[in-house]
């Protein structure tokens, strides 16, 4: 039966937990969520109401134990009928026709209207998220992606087209072929100007492209380069990466190699860094010398692309940067130095002499600011046009291709209409705002498409067992820990709070563990729960030591600085450690935590 406001639910909830929950997520959410409430208060359109789902729902996912705990210790048994707030509009009013509904799985409370439910549904009702979860839980893992779909549009060569599309998209999703940039046109223009000046007018230039990871710096540069592809034969491109070329020597060698490969100069590996530099400088700064190296060439400009630019600033005396900038500035040769970095303050890292030679040109690439923008990008990444396909070298003349593309377009459109998909997008947006993450999450669903499993459904994205997203923290390890390890970890985390030194050694933790366990044992035995008490066993020091080492092995314990040389000698036992997870994190991230441990996490 539908859960009306008056029907008592299995789960009591008092005011406190709600508060604590809200408090929690304000703490945890990033800016993306912070600016949320006023946003939502401004105007209540549907998808903004959606916009709130993830937040609360995250809370539901993360904090149930805490909720339970807080209420237990508070012991406040409050009848639910008072102050059960809709988690969208936060209002408590629940009148007929606009009742507050409770999700039967996660007790997610919402108004009918806020959730756009015309009437109270019959039977069990689940919120969107649980719905999605329920569906993919219901599916048997293997057969998950093979249920026969009803409506295949009758397009000729459908399967072939589908494969074409998949291949093309997957290429894009895995980042092999760059997807078109959205909304960075003026930056693009700027960069294009600079490079063009160098290539055509022979100016020397230098520029920094700054932006977060995955925002498309490299894509931008590549796009510009490819735009100039018709002048390709009068400039060279030298790509350096701060991760790979860890010092100037290597960088120089590689520059030499790359130039050499392009202008057929024999690279002698025996040359020392210094004279490599000299000859390089000569080569660059007096282009006339190019003549005898290979005639036929007029002076060519060189485009230096320094990826991870900030790392180059760490090289001793920044020799390379100095020389490059010097050449670029002194117009000795037509070169342009493009620095790609994620650090906004990178210019501060430059030495004075280097800084003075750097033309302070910057391009800032920003992540999509709003959800719609983000959604458009994502959508764009899933859709394509005949031209793109053609450009990618697919045969678009096949009949039915155009129809298929169109069909695909529509399919993506109504995919984007699905709540679950939106929810998926928003989660990504709040977490990272990074497009690549989204692309990655698309790989499997797209790859799994086939004639048997056709229309791209949103639930394919949230199916937890196939998600390719990176873990948010090392907490995922906790799930796999044994009870003893957990207990030790909890004890360590407790010690951080109890005696406010954030370091602890094994002896202290084991002592804490023993006291905790024995007290619990006494408690259980006194309250006659001997059945439970059987589980409570103080493990010996050796066993605990093994567990302790595993914790250290998983980097959940990080060695603390103190101990110095003695740490080397005394191995795991003697040295001081620092628990890398906080006490409140533990309970949330382990499912099926025993009651006792949950208690330990809760109260000091």
């Amino acid at each position, binding site marked *: 039966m539908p859960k009306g406001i008056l029907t008592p639910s299995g789960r009591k909830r008092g005011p406190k937990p709600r508060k604590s929950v809200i408090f929690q997520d304000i703490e945890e959410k990033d800016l993306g969520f912070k600016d949320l409430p006023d946003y939502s208060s401004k105007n209540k359109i549907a998808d903004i109401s959606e916009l709130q789902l993830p937040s609360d729902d995250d809370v539901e996912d993360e904090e149930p134990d805490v909720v339970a705990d807080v209420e237990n210790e508070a012991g406040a048994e409050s009848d639910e009928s008072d102050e059960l707030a809709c988690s969208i509009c936060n209002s408590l009013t629940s009148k007929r026709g606009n009742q507050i509904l409770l999700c039967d799985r996660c007790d997610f409370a919402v108004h009918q209207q806020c959730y756009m439910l015309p009437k109270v549904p019959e039977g069990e009702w689940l919120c969107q998220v649980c719905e999605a979860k329920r569906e993919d839980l219901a599916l048997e893992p293997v057969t998950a992606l093979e249920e026969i779909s009803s409506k295949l549009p009758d397009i000729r060569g459908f399967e072939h087209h589908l494969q074409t599309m998949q291949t093309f998209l997957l290429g894009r999703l895995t980042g092999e072929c760059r997807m078109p940039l959205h909304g960075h046109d003026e930056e693009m223009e700027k960069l294009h100007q600079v490079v063009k000046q160098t290539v055509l007018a022979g100016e020397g230039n230098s520029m920094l492209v700054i932006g977060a990871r995955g925002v498309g710096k490299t894509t931008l540069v590549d796009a510009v380069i490819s735009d100039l592809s018709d002048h390709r034969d009068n400039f060279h491109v030298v790509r350096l990466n701060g991760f790979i070329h860890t010092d100037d020597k290597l960088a120089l060698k590689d520059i030499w190699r790359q130039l050499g490969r392009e202008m057929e100069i024999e690279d002698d590996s025996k040359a020392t860094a210094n004279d490599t530099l000299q000859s390089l400088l000569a080569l660059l700064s007096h282009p006339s010398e190019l003549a005898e190296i290979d005639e036929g060439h007029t002076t060519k400009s060189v485009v230096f692309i320094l990826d991870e630019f900030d790392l180059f600033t760490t090289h001793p005396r920044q020799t390379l940067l100095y020389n490059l900038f010097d050449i670029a500035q002194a117009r000795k040769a037509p070169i342009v130095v493009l620095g790609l970095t994620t650090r906004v303050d990178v210019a501060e890292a430059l030495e004075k002499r280097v800084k003075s030679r750097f033309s302070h040109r910057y391009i800032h690439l920003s992540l999509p600011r709003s959800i719609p923008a983000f959604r458009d990008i994502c959508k764009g990444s899933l859709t394509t046009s005949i031209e793109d396909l053609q450009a990618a070298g697919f045969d678009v003349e096949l009949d039915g291709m155009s129809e298929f593309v169109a069909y695909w377009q529509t399919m993506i459109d109504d995919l984007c209409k699905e709540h679950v998909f939106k929810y998926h997008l928003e989660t990504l947006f709040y977490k990272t705002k990074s497009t690549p993450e989204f692309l990655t999450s698309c790989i499997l669903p797209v790859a799994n498409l086939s004639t048997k499993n056709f229309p791209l459904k949103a639930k394919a994205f949230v199916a937890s067992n196939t998600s390719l997203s990176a873990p948010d923290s090392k907490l995922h390890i906790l799930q796999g820990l044994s009870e003893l390890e957990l207990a030790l970890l909890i004890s360590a985390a407790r010690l951080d709070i109890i005696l406010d030194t954030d370091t602890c050694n094994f002896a202290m933790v084991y002592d804490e563990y023993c006291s905790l366990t024995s007290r619990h044992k006494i408690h259980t035995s006194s309250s006659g729960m001997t059945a439970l008490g059987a589980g409570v066993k103080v493990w010996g020091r050796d066993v605990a*030591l*093994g567990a302790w*080492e595993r914790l250290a*092995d998983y980097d959940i314990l990080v060695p603390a600085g103190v101990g110095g040389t003695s740490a*080397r*000698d005394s*191995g*795991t*036992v003697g040295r001081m450690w620092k628990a890398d997870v906080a006490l409140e994190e533990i309970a949330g991230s382990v499912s099926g935590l025993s009651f006792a441990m949950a208690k330990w996490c809760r109260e000091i």
Partner: protein
Amino acid sequence: MSVNGDTASISGIDSNDQQAAYIFTRHEDVPVLPAKRRRGGRSSINGLHHDAAEIRFESLMGGIEGPEFVDLRMKLYRESWGATEGRIQTILEAANEDTLSKVTDFVLNTTIPEGMGTLPTGFIATGPSIASQSLLFKQIAGRLKSQINGPVVTLRSGDATNLKAALKQIIRDTTHQGVDPVDDDYMLAGHDGPNLLNYDLELLHRYVVAHNSERVVVAFQDSEAFDPVLLADIIKLFDCWIDRLPFTLLFGIATSVELFHERLSRAASRCLYGTQFDVEQTSSILERVFQVIVGPYVPLRLGPNLLSSLMARQHDHVQSIQVFTNSLKYAYMFHFYTNPLSILTQPRKKTDETIQSLQPLHIQTVRELPSFRRLIEALIGDGDKDRSIHAQDMLQNNSILLKEMEIYSCMNSTKLLNLWRRMCVLTRSNKMTLSKIELYLQAFKGTLNGSDTVRGILDSIKHMAPGDLISLVDTITGVVKTGDSDYQLEGWLQDDQEFVSKLQDLRMKTLKLYDEAKKAGKPVRSSYAAHHKGVRTTVIAQKVQLSYEKSTLSKHDLEFTGVVDSLTVVLKEYLTFDQPQTWFLSEVWITDFVSPSKDVFTPRPRHVLENSLSNPSDKLPGCDPSVEILSSSTAPTAILYNMYLESGSIINIADLKTSFFSIMEGEDSDDLDEKTLLMLFYQALAELKLLGMIKQSRKKVDHLAKSAWRGL
């Protein structure tokens, strides 16, 4: 350390940036100090190159001793020590035999059950004497190399400071073990592509493949001295390779496997599947060595004091055969070097010849021997006429003395032999095994006569049943007939005829009684045995019991009691030991000087230093003990040291200097000007510093921190 201290202080001073102190010199030899040092160094260098021929003993007795005797002493020393050392070596090598075979067996065939770790590991528990480990592991390596097909590498904590170094070492040793190094080098150089890094176990793998070795044995000689973390890394690395490289690990454990396990990280110890091997402990080896060095036939023996001090050192300070051997060697050397009469420790004949060819001074020495004096006193003691005359002759007439010496020297050997035989009988007739060293000490201290051991045996006899009695007698006679290998004795039946015969007829009697009693069906027991059957509490009760026993004693019992008594008597008068040191000429073959070896082997540098600094008058002949220390006449270092003793934990240099000056200038400030004083002050300070007593304090500037405590 005192010596080191001096040289160090010299080096320290010219390395010290206090050269200024030496521009002005009071003693002209100061500037040439470095040169001196160099010379000293050179001499010490080529001191090593002395070959044995050049070394000669000093001629004793004020240089009058003839060179032939000097050489003889040296020759004797070489022979006797060589023999002893050889025997000790054989014992040491034999001692590990058992372990060796077991280890080899273990390495050759060990299979690891499921889920028990991957690396077969042998823990060789060599006691805490680290010195013995090197020998053991040399033997093991040698044995394994001969037995198994595969490389054997021994790692010492010194070689393996980090993982890289350890791997390098392993690979280097392995590849140099190859039967054909050239081929190996070629192969290891890697015919395909660039050659590998020299710490890449791939090299080892290639080697193993090329020689299809079955095992790769890596032995960690002093495993405790390794950094545990490093050990764990090595083990884990080996675990990665175990599918390609058949590793077997050996650890030398000086403390205990438990401690070792505790130090090792669990992750590493999970890889190990170990077996423990125990090496024969130092103490038991010592027993064996001891039996070698004091046989009845060895030329030289250690006196009780020396021996007990050596034993104490063994037990309390250092447990290592090597140390013991060294001190033993020193004792030999000392004896033959200092004792002119040591030439008499030769086989009988030679001794007689030597005795005939003695120099008068030798004879003089003999006459000064305490044992000689004792002999004379013994002769004169009882107012017997001709004995005293004999004594007089010995005192005056050399020839007679020489004859006597011959007699006594041969008598001594026989007496010694007897002593040994009795000790042997004592040991055998005793139920519990008693340490031979103890026995020896008692015998030489002369406390063995009527000692607890002897009495214990006699008492035990009293309570014996006939059967035990017979068996005891049998053992004794057996020993007398056949001899004992431990004591290197063969049977001496012909010498102790009557003793044996006595025993025999006692045995006959006992047997007879025994049989009769058996016929009578009533056990025979001596009255002593009868006494202690029941324990009666009160005196009265005991009296009653006593009388009762007496009355109930059968005649067999009485006879048996008689037999027991007589046996006791026989044994008692057989087991009499007289103290060897009292014998005439015992000094020749007993060395019993403790202090020299103490001074050599356990110096107490710190003690000496502190004493000599706190009151130099003991050491420096120049200054007289009457004047108090803090006066200009004493050595500056001493003055400074005494101030140091009086001052607190942190000393202000300026204050120190002023007080030092005030003392030096105290009464007679005639020739000492500022510069000299300053020089002396700095010199003294530098010396204190180099003795490790002061150092720059971190707490306060221009202060010194005391770093040495008094009297430790």
